[in-house]
């Protein structure tokens, strides 16, 4: 048996390659990025002709995957939890169109917000779309679930969600691979109206989707990923979802709890297994990574049944990811005191890299805007969001991809001047263009900085869809040529840059400033590669 040390993300990627996937589409987002990155770098994937590509955003990615499914082939689309908000439209509607070739939405949630602006639980989205959800408890299951997920998707012609969280995505473990399966042949849907959601057709499709629910439940009840484990101590029954199952086992040296346990890794919630546990035990403890989805269902609105413990009653905290210690406390184990962190240890938050072009942009912007006062800069999602922290403290918002331009427009409509937006090149093509068009159409009085570092920096330097397109895009949506200003964010150009920024802040209308200098990380990477190539040549 071949053993590999895979990150959870890599296990999913390799499983896609092995399970006959023909295409993978994504926009980078921690903790999901490494899935697509792995397939793009894989020689095996290239040799098999698998399409692996970064898209402009999660919505375009999901739709491309749906299109590949339409053509009968297996497709995957990967995103972080907030990326699913962007792709929500194709996601929810694809539940009704259904799939032709197998279709998997991989969604990586980030409880504890290690690299995110919220910790929403994507299982609610899966439930909302009424589709099967797979939630692996370890890397091997993550691998296996891609194979089984495609099978499930093709059996019922429905998209399947594979939900993971940060710890699984970014933790490495031994994974055994299965035999490789050939890709599907091109094959149109048998019913050429399958994907036409005109109301009259959609109503029928919805009825069909509703009728499928009992089958999905049956699949869950019989799934090998969901298990009922006997235990003698009936004072408590435990439900452990996904990764939480590991934290439960960690607390019992023999890896066997004395209580009955229901392990849940496939949804809809296997109600038969849960009912058996509920009937047998005096109280129920629910361990789940994310929001209290199962716990809330079990409690119901009136909470008149047996005692249900979990996040809602304070047995576990409402916010943040689980860990072995929290689960130990929930099980009532006394914990030995540990050495505290010494007081002298200072926090070390992430910061802009030394030599980062955003630093020079923020220093220039701070100086130019000083006369107008603080609090007028809307920002977006990317490395430059770190400009909120000292010593820059240049920005006043970070909400969602693209919100900088649109919020600046709204505030300008309310009479704020200057009203400034700061957005990265990749974020601009992700969700900024449409907002800029709104501003141009209304002749809004805003100044937009498109920070062009020629890459998607925060997630590790994936190619930016905006590369070489930014001025054309701005002109295309109607920004006046003389108010598209390109500057080079360098310390030695500080005075000239500050003057240009001030000019555009004073202009009454839409102006765009493009500070353009390559990300210091990708520049270093490129220089190292160049140096190595040269050294090899000289040998």
């Amino acid at each position, binding site marked *: 048996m071949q053993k590999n040390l895979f990150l959870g993300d890599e296990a999913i990627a390799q499983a896609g390659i092995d399970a006959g996937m023909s295409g993978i589409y994504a926009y980078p987002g921690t903790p999901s990025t490494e899935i697509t990155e792995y397939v793009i770098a894989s020689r095996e994937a290239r040799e098999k002709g698998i399409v692996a590509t970064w898209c402009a955003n999660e919505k375009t990615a999901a739709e491309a995957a749906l299109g590949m499914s339409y053509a009968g082939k297996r497709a995957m689309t990967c995103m972080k939890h907030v990326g699913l908000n962007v792709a929500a439209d194709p996601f929810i509607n694809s539940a009704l169109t259904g799939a032709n070739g197998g279709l998997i939405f991989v969604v990586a949630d980030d409880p504890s917000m290690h690299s995110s602006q919220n910790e929403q639980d994507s299982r609610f989205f899966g439930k909302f779309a009424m589709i099967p959800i797979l939630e692996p408890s370890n890397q091997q299951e993550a691998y296996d679930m891609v194979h089984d997920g495609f099978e499930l998707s093709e059996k019922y012609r429905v998209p399947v969600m594979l939900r993971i969280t940060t710890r699984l995505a970014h*933790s490495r473990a*031994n994974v055994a691979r299965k035999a490789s399966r050939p890709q599907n042949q091109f094959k149109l849907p048998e019913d050429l109206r399958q994907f036409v959601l005109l109301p009259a057709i959609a109503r029928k499709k919805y009825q069909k989707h509703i009728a499928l629910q009992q089958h999905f439940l049956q699949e869950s009840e019989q799934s090998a990923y969901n298990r009922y484990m006997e235990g003698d101590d009936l004072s408590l029954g435990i439900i452990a979802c996904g*990764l939480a199952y590991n934290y439960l086992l*960690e607390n019992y040296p023999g890896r066997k709890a004395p209580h009955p346990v229901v392990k849940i890794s496939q949804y809809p919630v296997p109600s038969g297994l849960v009912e058996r546990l509920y009937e047998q035990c005096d109280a129920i403890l629910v361990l789940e990574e994310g929001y209290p989805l199962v716990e809330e269902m079990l409690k119901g609105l009136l909470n008149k049944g047996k005692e249900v413990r979990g996040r809602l009653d304070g047995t576990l905290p409402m916010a943040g990811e689980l860990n072995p210690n929290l689960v130990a406390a929930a099980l009532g184990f006394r914990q030995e005191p*540990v050495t*505290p962190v010494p007081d002298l240890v*200072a926090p070390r938050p*992430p910061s802009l890299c030394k030599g980062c072009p955003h630093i020079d942009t923020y220093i220039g912007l701070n100086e130019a805007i000083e006369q107008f006062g603080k609090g007028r800069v809307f920002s977006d999602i990317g490395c430059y969001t770190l400009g909120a922290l000292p010593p820059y403290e240049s920005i006043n918002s970070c909400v969602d991809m693209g919100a900088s331009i649109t919020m600046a427009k709204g505030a300008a409509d309310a009479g704020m001047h200057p009203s400034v937006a700061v957005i990265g090149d990749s974020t601009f093509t992700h969700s900024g263009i449409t907002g800029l068009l709104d501003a141009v159409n209304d002749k809004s009085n805003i100044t937009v900085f498109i920070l062009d570092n020629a890459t998607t920096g*925060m997630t590790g330097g994936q190619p930016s869809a905006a590369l070489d397109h930014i001025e054309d895009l701005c002109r295309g949506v109607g920004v006046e040529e003389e108010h598209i200003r390109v500057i080079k964010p360098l310390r030695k150009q500080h005075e000239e840059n500050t003057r240009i920024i001030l000019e555009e802040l004073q202009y009454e209308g839409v102006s765009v400033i493009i500070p353009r200098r390559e990300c210091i990380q990708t520049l270093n990477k490129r220089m190292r590669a160049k140096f190595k190539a040269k050294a090899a040549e000289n040998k």
Partner: protein
Amino acid sequence: MKKDIILAGVGGQGILSIAAIIGHAAVGSGLYLKQAEVHGMSQRGGDVQSHLRLSSGEIASDLIPQGKADMIISVEPMESLRYLPWLGPEGWLITSTKPFINIPAYPDPEKVLERVRALPHHVALDAETIASGLGSAKAANMVVLGAASPFLEIAYEELEQAIRQVFGRKGEDLVKLNLDALGAGRDFTREHLNQ
């Protein structure tokens, strides 16, 4: 056999390379392994840590429970102290003494080292200076790994083999530098233990 290790440092200091070397060596020794890494935002000059778990039996949790780690291996002294809640009563702390100061509130480096030296089981070495002496300060992470190697219960040859595997693609010079760094770290700890 069971070894629970916290790897600590600042983004960009090479703790994932340490993890990769131990990981290869562990698999070469037929052990189970789980290793939780930090990616994304924190890598930008922030504190980073990795939970590395090795065992002859299957491992449940990707995270090490507090108070259960056998070792903290750190390439930065203040970062080594950040994870003391994880260190078990018999656990060892192995750290480089060279501070990485990229925040205004960095404490007095002498006080940091005092706190490290107050621990009953510690190895503190200036890995960067040792690595510089061997040819490149960048190999400081391998010096630290070498210093930790006597506590790992993994055959030293397996670590050497892992370095050849991981750095092999990057040329013989880099392999030799890292092997030397590993050896220098190990020698330091051996002498330290003999004192």
